[in-house]
């Protein structure tokens, strides 16, 4: 818990002080170069998004270079109005939230437990479990889709049900691997000492391990969040009822079929893209400050 407390950490974790110290290792020229690299990167990453917003507001398509700048005569909200009239955005948003929330809970609770036991505990079958987690990464989801569909829709009767949408994604295996990886980096001595003091494994996990792997938790939240939020193939197959479809599915539908008949198809597609991207980007910006406390390592590795 106190790993991030600068007063207690001998190596200090205020990003400011850290930055200053490191900058001193760079010459002025190198600093400038670094600034340029970062700025170029930022432009390359942000420009398509800027363009997405501009394009979604255009009355008619303007693919020229001048089209990248807003032209008051060519601006309109019609593209958004067109989407809103075809799709129930709020329902889609709520469905996406339920789908994503379910997966996050499953991954953070059970994935964390599994990652911990894979890294810190010795038990029979540990190796095989880890190998399974690795194999899950390797196998394309399209190979599993139909057997899975039959299993969930026919055998479990979970078609058109939130559980059916969530189930295949419930525990993210990549998250398990990431948790394990981070737990492995923690000094074993710490845990052995606490075990001798009589702490239970759950308590070790909760009070020692978890605070130390906070960056891993944040990484996992980000990684896990975007999976279900952006997934469209599976929920598309398993839900026949439009009232249960997540936003990605209804917007993918809109983009691939309905938009073509809109007045400005590109504008309609881009408006759909903005609607899908906006909540994630907004959430991300709000919570991004939690992504900055990454000084896990200071006391740990050595």
């Amino acid at each position, binding site marked *: *818990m106190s790993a991030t407390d600068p007063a207690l*950490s001998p190596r200090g974790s205020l990003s400011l002080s850290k930055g200053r110290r490191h900058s001193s*290792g760079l010459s002025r020229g190198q600093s400038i170069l670094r600034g340029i690299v970062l700025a170029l990167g930022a432009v390359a990453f942000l420009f398509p998004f800027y*363009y997405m917003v501009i394009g979604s507001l255009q009355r008619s398509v303007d693919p020229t270079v001048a089209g990248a700048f807003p032209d008051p005569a060519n601006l309109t909200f019609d593209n958004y109005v067109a989407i809103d009239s075809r799709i129930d955005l709020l329902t889609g948003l709520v469905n996406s939230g339920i789908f994503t929330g379910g997966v996050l809970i499953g991954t953070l609770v059970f994935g964390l437990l599994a990652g911990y036991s894979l890294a810190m505990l010795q*038990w029979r079958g540990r190796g095989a479990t880890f190998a399974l987690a690795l194999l899950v990464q390797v196998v394309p989801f399209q190979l599993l889709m139909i057997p899975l569909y039959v299993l969930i829709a026919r055998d479990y009767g979970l078609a058109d049900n939130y559980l059916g949408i969530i*189930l295949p994604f419930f525990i993210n295996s990549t998250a398990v691997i990431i948790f394990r990886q981070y737990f492995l980096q923690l000094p074993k001595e710490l845990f052995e000492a606490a075990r001798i003091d009589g702490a239970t494994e759950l308590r070790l996990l909760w009070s020692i391990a978890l605070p130390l792997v906070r960056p891993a938790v944040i990484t996992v939240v980000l990684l896990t969040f975007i999976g279900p939020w952006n997934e469209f193939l599976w929920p598309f197959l398993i839900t026949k009822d439009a009232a249960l479809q997540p936003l990605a599915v209804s917007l993918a539908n809109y983009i691939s079929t309905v938009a073509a008949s809109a007045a400005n198809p590109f504008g309609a597609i881009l408006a759909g893209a*903005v609607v899908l991207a906006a909540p994630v980007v907004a959430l991300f910006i709000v919570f991004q400050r939690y992504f900055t406390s990454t000084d896990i390592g200071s006391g740990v590795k050595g």
Partner: protein
Amino acid sequence: MTDTLHAPAASGPPAGTPASPSVAKRGRRPLGKNPLGLLFSAPYLIFVLVVFAYPVGYAVYIAFHDFFFTAPGAVVGRPFVGLDNFVTALGDPAVIRSFGNVGIFLAINVPLTVVLSLVLATALNRVTRFRTFLRVSYYVPYVTASVAVVGVWLFLFSGNGFVNALLGPLAPDPSWLVNSSLAMPTIAIFVTWKQLGFYILLYLAALQGVPKELYESASTDGAGAVRSFFSVTVPGVRPATVLVLLVSTVTGANLFTEPYLLTGGGGPNGASASPVLIMYQRGLQQGQPDVAAAIGVVLVIAVLIIAYLQNRFAGGDDR
């Protein structure tokens, strides 16, 4: 606990340090030293067995039989056909080409991902101003749905799109996504762009684990920023590099959404079809799940081999 954490590393292994369990020990405890581990992992294990192992087993079964999907209750023969489906799959030039395509994809995407994400993460790690802004801008493509960003890229890279307008006479003809030699590289660059934020995050976290003393001592030795990057940073984040290599290879091999959405199903003329896309077409559209499963099995084996080689040569040494 904080004290324990920051105390100089205990000298000598405390009692009970995990050592390879002796045979005698194992005999006494059939579930291993900490049977609790099994309990902790049980939900995950059950999950994996149900939604992964069973479908995979079923898919392997399908790959060796003359199989098609039927309505419940329909009685049909599904004879064992040995390697027939594999012969059909690998005898199909489109399938072979798709494996080649994904090879091109990986050859561009993986090195680009590793280099760019490490460089950007290192730069980002030391920057003080605009840190938040930069972070956000790097992660935004990663958190956004493919479905959404593909729309913009289509717009940017279409024949009369923004990129060609910018390039003017230098614009490729035929344009990016319909040019059989540029379609796959364009997709590879798109995916690199899209995923980079995640790998930057992995590296950033790993960079925190590189002891600051190493930089300090490198600095005392007179190493400049570039040299300390190669002598301290690169070796320091090697476990992360192994992970980045592995994850980017595996995601790349499973490429599907981008050709599905960006090049209208693997065009032009199959130049951007990936094995998974072909699986999807054969299995779900053309009613040949048996051939699709065979392609999937081949793909999985190929990826396992590559992952094994990467692990071997990039030197994963973490237990």
